[in-house]
Each structure stands twice: as C-alpha cells, then as structure tokens.
C-alpha cells in the first residue's frame, strides 16, 4: 500500500529499549500524548520494538489499525531505521513512510531528569510525526553496475583485497604508487606472533596477484581523478614514466648493476644505497626497474646513459612521458596503508640527529636476512656490533600534547618481537624496553610477549623515556621506572624508537578526489565504527588496512577480505538499489541561475537549456544516480527549486513548530 493521502493514519510505536529509554523517559506518557495528535491513529509501547515479537506487534497493528505511516520512537536511525523500514514494507507500507524518532541517543541517554526527558521525548516524537505525515511514498532508484573494481595501494591489504575480488571472478585493477607491490610488509623481517619470515609469506601472494588473469597490476601509478558514482565510477590513473619499456625488459639487472649514480635506498631505510635506475628490492613484483629522474645523471646533467648502453634489448626510453588511462569501475577499495611518524619529530630523543637512534622499520631491515647487513645487528654509525639495546615504545603515540593522541596499536607487539629477535641473535646482549602499557590483545599475542620477557629475558621498564643523548660512542637513555619511582639511565649501543604510525602521504589529496571523509588524525573515516567498519560514507568506496587506522597484518588481511566481500556482494546483482532520498529539482521553479552546479560535490548537477513551447528554458538537471542526497544544493538554491525528498522546507517548518509549541 502506497499512500500519499491527505488524511494519513499514523501509527507510533514507542520502544522502552529495556531500561535504556524507559529508565529515564515515561514511555507510556509519550504514547498517551502522541495519541492526541491529529492524524495519529495508534500510539503504543513495547519493551524491545526491534525484537521479533516487537516487530510482529508492529506488523499486526499496521494491519489492524489500517495504518499507512509509521513512527518508531526508539534508538538512533543509524541503528535500526533499516530494520523498521523493512518491517513496515513487509506489512505492506512504503518503507519511506516509516520514520525514526531518536529518543535514546538524543534523549534518554543524555538526560537524567525524568520529567524533562519525557517532555523532550514527546517533542522529538511529535516532530517526527509531523514529518511522516508529509512523507511521500517513494521507490528505490535502480542503477546499473560496472562489475570491475579498483584497489588503491599494493601493500598486503590491497593485494589481499584484489586477490579476493579477482578470485570472485571480477576484473580488478591494483594501483600502486611505487614500482613494486608489497608495501610495508615486504620490509619486515619476521612477523609476530609466529615469527614467519615476512617475505616468505608475502612474496607468493605478490606473484599470485601479478599472474592472476583477473588482476591488472598498475604499479608506478597514481589516482589522478575520480568521477561518477557507486557502480559507475570513472577513475583516471596517472602512469608515471618509468623510463624503461617494461614490455621489453627482462629484468636482467645489467642496468642497475652498472649505473654509477648511488642514492640511499628507501626500501633499506637508508641503510644501503641503490642506483638511480633500480628495483626497490630483489623480489620486486613486477621485477622491472624504473629510473629515478631526480638522481639520474642523464636527466640532471645530460651525461652517462650507461644503462642505455648496457641494455641489450634497448628497453631504456629516456623520452617516456606520463600516461593517463581512464578506467570504468563499479567499486573502489582504498588500501593506502601507513607511514612511520617522522623520526625527526622526536627531537627529545635525538630523532634524525643521532645515527644510533633509529625507527622500528629501520631495525626491521637490520634484522632481516635480506637486509643490507644480512641480518646482523650493527650500529649504523660505525658498523660495530650491538650489545646493549633500548627499545622505546609509544614514540610519538599516546602523546596528546606534542605528537599523536592515539595508540598506534602494532608497536607493543613488534617491540616484543624486536627484543626477542635481538636476543636470539645476540645471546649475551641486553634488551631494555621502556613502555607505558603493554597491550597484547590478539590471538597468541600475550603468550608471545611472555616468551620475550620470561624466556628471552628482555628487561621491561614501565615508564616514559625523557631524553636520549650521545655520550661518546654510546647513546644514553634517561627514563623513570614509574613502578619504583627511580630514575633510570642506560648507556646503549642502539636505541630503537617504536614510532607512531600515521596515514600515508597524499591521503588528503586522495580523500578529496574520492570525496570520502578522514578523521581528526587523518585516517579514513568509516561509515560506522562498529557496524560498517570497511565502508566509506560514499557508497561503492571501501577501506582495507592501516589507511583506516593502525592495524597489524592479520587485521589488515581480514579487513581486506571484508572489503572484498562487500564488493563481491555488490557485484552479485545486476542493478544497484539506491535510496530515493535525494535531491529533486522542481523544473517549474528552477530559473537556471547555476548556483548549485559548481557546489555539488558529486557533480550530479549540470546546466541544461531546452526549448519549451518555443521558449528557451534554462535549468539545473539532476543525475539521480550521482546524487547522494547531501543537501548542499538545496540549502544554496536561492529560489527553492532544489529540495530534498521528504525533507522539504515547508515540512521542516511544521516539524519545528510542534517543537516550539
């Protein structure tokens, strides 16, 4: 039954939510007051409206009382609006004529005074009754889907998401800004809590992604622009010039072995050098070099060209230009990962100043068998062996005043791993760890930490390090043991700072291109922290991995799988159903002034000139599929032509009026 009748029969169902609402709000009184309103045919209460009997009560009452619209006075619409809309639909009503009056989060939870809270709950509910009376019966919008996906970021999260989508049978583009996929995980030595070698478990996945018939790897590429909407995005990808024709290149390595220009290797965290033409690491996928033009003698000084001379197949192409390709895609997974908070920001620890104060990631390269030292722990300053080592946890994390307010989550565990691996390599060495708290929530994590302290005898001191400075060959660490209250001074060979992690560089630009939100710390903001953790607020865009918040490998991989399953479930139907609660342009009112057009963040509006009865008619034309119902146009529209469906201004005034009564 669809109803746009002028004499509505509204049913109001007030939920107790156990004592969540009924503990503060007199729900019976709310029902009693609401039942006096014009157009309200029924008002009743139930202890848990969302429960099966609650929903049944709703359906039966809708039928018995011949209701055509429904208000549920309960919790936030973000929680159960869908539940109740579906229930109303099952009872034969139009789901968009079912509204939620939020008397829990907006009322009972934030008030203590019973009488006043009840009055407020009545006003909230009255206002929503006024809204539902004007709500029109609407039908969902159907949008076709392009069943291809783009995954941005080729770390372990991106690789996993791409593999899962590709294995589901859909074409997936994996976009990576560096020349190889692998991300941060490729740099790690062993992984907690099982101590598998990181490369051993990652590289097979990299190869699988590269060989997968449904995956197209686009490395050394970046997202240039994004337009379109869920199911039908158009993504422009900028392929940066590699200066090497990868179709010809066999990856023999002659070029980078002969290249005379040497610069610090990013992959090795500056512990060794790489050539200007290089692959980041030997297991790179694809195993093809690029020329770093900023450090190449030819590009900088016009000399050299040795790589061109040694390349037997003539793959070097100094004139290569960047290329822009446009990809049609139905879904986008953002997996752009993290970076370490810059060491230089920790001046109190001599970060960036003392060569023997290093970050956790650099220590991973020292530990790694494929690292520049072959896994030997040495001092970067002089190459001498390390006997006393200090690990400083929360370096930049949990520091509201100076650095990052949040817990970077992975550092407690990797520090435990670092200390353990150090002790495995340097049997007579001493590993000191400074911590605020040790957080080991995760499967087998606490046991791992126990091994570090009890079996490998790493010495944990509870307290924050106040200062690190150089004294001769040593770095001196000053801290306080907060359990004993004593000052602690350790003269160490090496200090490893468990740096806070933050979103990758460029996340802000990407966020603007994708029109998604970021939180106060710069991480991607999910649609709901608990119930929609891998979805953005923009439909069709999903998250995987540490770009959304600090995450370890198991979590990143499971989130990648979750994002992929969201994409796959979207691709399982041929049409998308979209909520019709979007903008509407009244053609009879729109004068074509154009104010709204530039403002629409989704580019859903365009200027159109048509001819009607021989007269030129200007107006803004809406693309329903693009519109997300944000309301920007409607608030800006100076003539009132742009309105929000079921949220029209005149209805809002009615809603406000009953609140002010």
């Amino acid at each position: 039954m669809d109803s746009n009748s002028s004499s509505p029969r509204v049913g109001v169902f007030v939920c107790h939510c156990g004592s969540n609402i009924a503990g503060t709000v007199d729900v019976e009184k709310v029902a009693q007051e609401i039942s006096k309103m014009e157009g309200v045919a029924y008002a009743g209460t139930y202890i848990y409206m969302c429960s099966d009997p609650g929903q049944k009560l709703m359906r039966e009452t809708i039928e018995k009382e011949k209701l055509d619209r429904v208000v549920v006075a309960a919790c936030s619409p973000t929680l159960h609006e869908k539940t109740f809309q579906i229930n109303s639909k099952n009872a034969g009503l139009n789901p968009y004529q079912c509204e939620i009056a939020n008397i829990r989060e907006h009322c009972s939870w934030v008030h203590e005074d019973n009488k006043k809270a009840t009055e407020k709950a009545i006003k909230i509910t009255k206002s929503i009754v006024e809204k539902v009376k004007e709500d029109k019966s609407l039908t969902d919008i159907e949008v076709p889907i392009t069943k291809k996906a783009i995954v941005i970021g080729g770390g372990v999260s991106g690789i996993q998401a791409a593999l899962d989508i590709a294995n589901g049978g859909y074409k997936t583009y994996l976009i990576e800004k560096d020349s190889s996929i692998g991300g941060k995980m490729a740099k790690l030595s062993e992984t907690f809590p099982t101590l598998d070698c990181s490369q051993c478990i990652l590289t097979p996945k990299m190869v699988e992604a590269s060989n997968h018939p449904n995956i197209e790897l686009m490395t050394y590429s970046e997202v240039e622009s994004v337009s379109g909407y869920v199911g039908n995005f158009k993504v422009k990808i900028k392929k940066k010039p590699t200066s090497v024709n990868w179709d010809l290149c066999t990856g023999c390595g002659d070029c980078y072995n002969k290249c005379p220009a040497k610069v610090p290797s990013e992959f090795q965290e500056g512990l060794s050098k790489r050539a200007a033409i290089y692959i980041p690491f030997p297991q790179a996928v694809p195993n093809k070099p690029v020329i770093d033009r900023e450090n190449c003698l030819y590009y900088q000084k016009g000399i050299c060209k040795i790589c061109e001379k040694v390349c037997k197949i003539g793959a070097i192409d100094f004139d290569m230009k960047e290329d822009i390709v446009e990809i049609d895609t139905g879904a986008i997974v953002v997996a752009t990962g993290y970076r370490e908070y810059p060491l230089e920001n920790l001046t109190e620890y001599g970060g960036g100043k003392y060569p023997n104060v290093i970050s956790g990631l650099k220590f991973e390269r020292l530990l790694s068998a494929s690292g520049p030292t072959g896994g030997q722990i040495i001092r970067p300053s002089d190459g001498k062996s390390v006997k006393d080592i200090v690990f400083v946890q929360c370096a930049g994390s949990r520091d509201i005043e100076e650095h990052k307010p949040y817990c970077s989550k992975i550092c407690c565990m990797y520090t435990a791993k670092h200390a353990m691996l150090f002790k495995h390599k340097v049997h007579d060495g001493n590993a000191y760890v400074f911590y605020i708290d040790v957080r080991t929530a995760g499967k087998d994590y606490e046991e791992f930490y126990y091994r570090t302290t009890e079996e490998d005898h790493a010495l944990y001191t509870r307290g924050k390090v106040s200062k690190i400075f150089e004294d001769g060959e040593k770095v001196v660490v000053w801290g306080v043991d907060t359990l004993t209250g004593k000052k602690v001074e350790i003269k160490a060979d090496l200090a490893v700072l468990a740096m806070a992690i933050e979103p990758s560089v460029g996340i802000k630009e990407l966020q603007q291109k994708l029109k998604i939100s970021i939180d106060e710390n710069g991480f991607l903001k999910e649609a709901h922290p608990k119930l929609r953790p891998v979805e953005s607020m923009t439909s069709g865009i999903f998250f995987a991995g540490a770009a959304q918040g600090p995450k370890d490998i198991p979590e990143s991989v499971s989130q990648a799988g979750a994002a992929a399953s969201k994409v796959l479930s979207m691709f399982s139907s041929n049409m998308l159903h979209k909520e019709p609660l979007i903008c509407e342009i009244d053609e009879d009112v729109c004068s074509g002034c154009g104010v709204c057009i530039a403002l629409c963040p989704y580019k859903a509006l365009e200027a159109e000139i048509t001819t009607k009865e021989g007269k030129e008619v200007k107006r803004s034309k809406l693309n329903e599929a693009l519109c997300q119902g944000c309301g920007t146009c409607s608030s800006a529209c100076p003539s009132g032509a742009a309105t929000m469906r079921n949220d029209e201004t005149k209805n809002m005034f009615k809603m406000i009026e009953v609140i002010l009564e």
Partner: protein
Amino acid sequence: MTKANIAFYWASSCGGCEIAVLDINEKILDVIEKANILMWPVAMDTKYEDLKKMKDKSIDVCFFNGAIRTSENEELAKILREKSKILVAFGSCAHEGCIPALANLFNKKLIFDRAYKETETTMNNEDTLPQTSFMTKEGEVHIPEFYDTVKTLDQVVDVDYYLPGCPPTPNIVEDAFNKFLSGDLPPKGTVMAPVKALCDECPRKKKDKMIDTIYRVYEKEADPEKCFLDQGIICMGPATRSGCGHQCIKGNMPCTGCFGKTPEVTDQGAKMISALASVLAVEKELELDEKKVEDLISKIKDPVGTFYRYSLASSFIKRKVIK
C-alpha cells in the same frame, strides 16, 4: 454591463505606486471604461468620512499600496478591507514592507530623535516631538500614532492578491487589471507574477558560480553580456521573482530584489545569503583562514540593505531587537 468599482489607496509609501498606475499609459482609459474609480488619493479628493459611509463590499477591487507604519495606515487598511470584495497589496511596500520597513532596524524613539533632534539642520532646543494629541487655541489636534515597527498589509488585514515590485511594472499592472475586470481570478493569495526567479528571463551568459571576491557596482564596470554574480557583483536575481522585464539588468545594474521571493522560499534574504555563502570562494575554501573569510564577507557593505532591502518586514526576523 455594470461598471466595476475600484479604489486606490496609499499608506506608507513614496507615491511611486500611484504613478505606476499611470505607467500603463493610454490603457488607463480602457480601465476607466470598465470601472468607476471611487477613491484615488493622488488624483481625487475622497474624504475618509465618505469612505466609512460606503456599504461593506461596495468596492469590487481595492489596490492598496504602502506599508503600515502609522495608526492611520492601519485604520484605513481595516476600513478598506471591509468595504472591498478584493483587497490587493499593490507594490512592494504593501507586499513585503519595502524601503519604509528598513526603519525596523530602529524604533520610534530612535527615529524621532534622529529626525527631530539630531539632524544637522535641526534646531529643536525644547526637544519638541510629535504627539498624537495636542491642544491648540482652536481646539485639540489629533495626528496618527507612529508605530515602532513597520508591517506589511497582510500583517494587519486579510489580503487576496499581491502585485510585487517597487513599483509594479506596467506589464503586470495591466495583466492584473485585465484579470480583475474580466473576473478571471487566480487562487486567493497569488502573487501576480511568474513563479520562476529572474535568471529565467535574464539573457546574460552564465558560468559556474565561482566568485572569488565581491565588487560594489561602482567598483567595476560590469560586462553587459555576463551574469553579474559571475562577475562578483551581488545580484538578487536568483532569489527574486521574475516578471519585471529585467529592466535593471538591461540598464546594466544588478537586480536588487523588489519582486520578492519565489513561492517555494520562506525568506528571500536568508536564501540569498545562503546561496552566496555557498558559492563565495568555494574553490579556495581550504586556503582561507578566518581572517580572510572575514575580509571577504566585509566586502558586503550594508547586508540588510542588500539582502532585505524590500523584504525585511515580511522576513523571519522582521526587525532588529532594541533593548
């Protein structure tokens, strides 16, 4: 055929609306052919006493211009309502308050102090101010009370139709006469002008509204081909009802909004502020700190006079609160 009885009245207005009736030129003769004019202060001497003696509803259509500023305005509005079958708010003052209602930024005391004491050319050592009654040798003199707040006609009596404009343009006046005299009446409450905003009839080229800064009309010679807003000159056209024949635009001056809001809008000024705030420097939004935003906004001189020049009395806020 019996002639219709029509009346004109002026309340608080400049007199321009009275003249606007004559702007229809020789067509006034057609009107006179079909109608008796019972009252027309600018042209005829009709005494209030005679008006009061008329039977109720003996005037077929009364065109009432001017806002309600004094007790006299209000009294006449009420009498004319009783005597008229159809009461038309004629022109912006009766419709929305117009320029006289900008006095709602002040009150009676502030206005009297300024007018009778503070103006540079005034000598008033005894602080004499107008009184509603005053005893003279000849007897007691009464003058109307001056209100604190200017009101629109429909804020004091029921109004049937509205003719917008400062003043209403000849085309809409003629159209209204034709409709009333032929009995072809629109629904009660209709504003007798097109529903779309002025941009609908404006021939200027429009681009996406990306306005970096604001110019006052004297600061920049406007390109007559291009949309004023696109050039950074505030034009009320997007928020103003069309039907005026875009005369100001033709004269290379932006619309100031005299035809009032479009029917879907509640508050013309608020709508235009919202529109302008939305598009102003939208491209550079991220670069602007609070100071720069303030500088930009401060380029709008006299915001009430810009956005509420005609509609203050009929807006949400209606007047300034003076404590």
